[in-house]
Structure formats: C-alpha cells, structure tokens
C-alpha cells in the first residue's frame, strides 16, 4: 500500500470519528426547546463555524486523496479497447503535462475545435487515446451508491496537480472569449417552470437557501469560493463530486431539463466562472458540507 493510500485510509477512519463528534455537537443545541429564535439561529451559525474548523483540520488529510490516488493509477494504467494510458493526454500544456493544467481550464483545443473544461478534456482523451465510447462514459457520470466513475477520480488527480497554483483561465483565443460571453448569457437565462436562472440564486451578495450560503458567481469573491470547492468530497452522502455534477444538480433544482454531460453548455458556464476567479491561488480538491 502506497503512503498516499495509507494516509487516505487513516484520514477516512479519522473522518468517521470526527463526523460522530460533529453529529453530537450538532444535535446538542437542539435539546433545549429553543424558545427565542435568536438563540437558535446562533446555534446554527455555531454549527457552520464548527464545520469550518473541522474542515480546516481535515483538509490536510482529506478523503479526496483517496480519489486522487485512484485517479493517478487510472491515468498511468493501460486501459480501454486501445490498451493505452492517458500519459499522452494533452490538457493544454502539451502531451502528458498535468502540473498546472487544471487552473488553466477551460481552454480552447484546436485538435477538437472546442472549448473544454477539465472533465470534458479527460473524457475526450479517454475516447481518442483509449478508445472508450463517449456515450458509455456519459451514461452514469456521477458518483453514487454504485461507485465513483473513472473520470471523477481522474479529474481529482489532475486538479490536485494544480494545488497551490494561481487560477489563470485563458481568454486569448476568440473562442475562449466567446465561451465566456455565452457562458454569462446561460448564467442569466431565466426559463422553466419556476422562471429561474443561475443568477436567481447566485447573482446577489450574502444570500442563503435555508442555511446554505450562496456564492455570487458573477463576482470574483464568489467565483473563487466555487472554483475552490471542487472537486470535493461531499459529507452529505459521502461522495466525491466534480464541477460537472455541481452544474447538473443546479440545473435540476433550477427546474430545467438535464444538461448533457461534458457538453459545451457546461464548458461555457465554467469558463465564465473560472475567468471570474482568475488570480486566486487554488488549494486543491477538498471537503464539502
């Protein structure tokens, strides 16, 4: 067992203990029949603060590392109908260069004539280099009780190789600038049964749904918070998720039909968000509430 795997396993067992402790703490303030609303609200934010502390402690040995390790193995192993590894995959900095690639995505790729985010590009490499079928990869692309799809682990691995680097999503190519502009329009596009756009929830400062803070993704601060959060190991459910999942589940709650996995729509939205986050240091995959 490699040291990284061992650390991840240790982290997971530590996490279970910490979760139990957290759950107890979370339950405790509920016992007194909170007559004053104010006191109860304070205990809610105390829970949030508690979780923040817990996350800080855990992020040094995050369960995300387990998926990082799995992703590394998948990257280097010969797989698929073409029995090839992904080591020749060009993530924008040349074939095989992973370091710093994630913080420079999405970007325009001439070989595909498309703007691609990290997951879209990795899927493209799995198809072109390894011979997997895009339709198969898109069938069950999100982590669930039945497992963690390979692209999720691969994105986690690739993202981790940009840890500590500045976000620098490029806007040099005209198609990259177009992706930003179209992404902004998709962000603001109100439609559907409830007249929602992305901006309905993520276009204003300091708003919440229930107790969940909503980053304003049209600002630098909010976009940074969102870029930083993914890929993330989500405590709710205990799954590793990427931005592809986040976009998908946002559209579900927006009461829209389902966006295609690794589609141009998602790449453009992520370009809009990524460019808004430019300049900030990316801390790598982490833990989500």
């Amino acid at each position, binding site marked *: 067992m490699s040291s990284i795997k061992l650390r991840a396993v240790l982290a997971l067992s530590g996490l279970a203990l910490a979760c139990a402790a957290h759950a107890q703490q979370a339950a405790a303030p509920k016992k007194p029949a*909170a007559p004053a*609303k104010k006191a*109860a*609200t304070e205990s*809610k934010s105390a829970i949030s603060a508690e979780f923040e502390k817990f996350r800080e402690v855990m992020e040094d040995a995050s369960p995300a590392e387990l998926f990082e390790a799995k992703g590394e193995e998948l990257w280097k192993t010969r797989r698929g109908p073409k029995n090839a590894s992904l080591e020749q995959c060009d993530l924008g900095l040349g074939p095989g260069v992973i370091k710093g690639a994630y913080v420079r995505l999405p970007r325009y790729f001439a070989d595909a004539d498309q703007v691609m985010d990290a997951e879209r590009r990795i899927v493209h490499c799995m198809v072109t280099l390894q011979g997997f079928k895009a339709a198969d990869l898109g069938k069950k692309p999100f982590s669930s009780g039945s497992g963690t799809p390979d692209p999720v682990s691969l994105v986690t691995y690739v993202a981790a190789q940009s840890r500590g680097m500045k976000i620098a999503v490029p806007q040099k190519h005209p198609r990259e600038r*177009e992706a930003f*502009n*179209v992404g*902004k*329009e*998709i962000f*603001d*596009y*109100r*439609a*559907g*049964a*409830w*007249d*929602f*756009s992305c901006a*309905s*929830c993520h276009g*204003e400062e*300091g*708003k*919440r*749904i*229930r*107790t*969940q803070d*909503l980053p304003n993704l049209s600002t630098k601060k909010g976009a940074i918070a969102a870029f930083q959060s993914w890929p993330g190991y989500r405590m709710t459910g205990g799954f590793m998720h990427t931005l592809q999942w986040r976009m998908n589940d946002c559209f*579900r*709650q927006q*009461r*829209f*039909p*389902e*966006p*295609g996995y690794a*589609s*141009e*729509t*998602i790449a*453009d939205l992520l370009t809009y968000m990524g460019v808004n986050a430019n300049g900030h240091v990316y801390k790598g995959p982490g833990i989500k509430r």
Partner: protein
Amino acid sequence: MKIFQTSIFGAAALAIAFTAQAGDDRAKASAMMKRDFHAKGIAGMDRLNEDGLQALCNRSHNNPPKANAERLQQDQLEAIKYPADGKFLGDWKSGEKIAQGGRGMTWSDKAGQANGGSCYNCHEIGPNETSFGTIGNSLRRFGKTRGNSPQMQKYVFGKIYNAKAFNLCSNMPRFGHSGTLTEKQIKDLVALLLDPDSPVNK
C-alpha cells in the same frame, strides 16, 4: 463641436454594437442549450423556451421598460384564478407543512405528487423554523403588521399564485400559474401568513 458630435455618434454606435453583441451571444446560448439538454422525467425540453415575460426580463436584465412591464403585469394579473367560493383563508397548520416542503417540478420529482412551496428556502416565516433562506424578504408577523382584511387576503393569494403580476421580474416562482400548488394549498399558505392563530403572527 465636431469632436463632441463625433464622440456622441461614437458612443451611440458603441452602445448599439454592445447590444447587438449581447443579443448574438444570447441567441447562441439559447441554441446551444436546446442542442445540449435533453428531457428527463417531468422536466421536458419545452422548459427551455422563454415565455413573453421571461424573454422581456432576460433582455432587460430584469429591469424592463415601464410601459412593457405594466402591460405584461396586467396580463399576469388577469390570468390569476381566484377561488370561486370567494374564501382565501385555509388551514395554517397545513400551510406550515407546505411552506416546509421543497419537493416539486424537478426531473427527480414524480408527476401527480403533492408539491411543496419551498417557502422556507427563501423566506423567514414562522418562529420555530430557524433554517430559512434570505433570497426573499422576512415574512415574520406578516399578518400582524399588515392586518388580514379581505383585500389583504386577496392580495396574498394573488401574490403566491403569481408573484409576477405584482413585480414582473420578481425572483419568486409563479406557484399557481405554473401548476406547482393547488388552490387549496395556496389558501393554506394565505392562512399561515394571515390567520391570527398562526404562529407567524405570534
């Protein structure tokens, strides 16, 4: 003078160019989504088509010209189906449950099930629920501060049925208009806000 004129023309041309560019990007965005999305469960592709109100709000950054807004708002107002029995106040206890419920209209919801209003997602309402959102205004003591006259009851019913009849580009969904909530459910929510016995007004 000439420089002044030129700069005015320049500014006007620039403004037009910007508007045209935004319209172009919007058209691309709309076409792209129609290509990239697929129907799932109860969420059909028709949901990507803007209705008149959505189109106007989208094109004006939710700040439509007054005359257009008033006309569309009037259309929305006239389409509200008020209860035939003329009664607006239902059961506040049931209203509290509807306000808590967040189910409805997503691709993971089933057709024909009872939907919730997701009210607490955005509003502070009753004193016993501290997990509330802040996208909407606080509704604490709503009836206590505004009274519960028949006019107020009718207004609240209409506002929940179709918030856009009162503020065209409001963030709030049109719960009656969209078929999310039934007439009875809306009456129960009116009671939650206006019934003197409702904890909202304690």
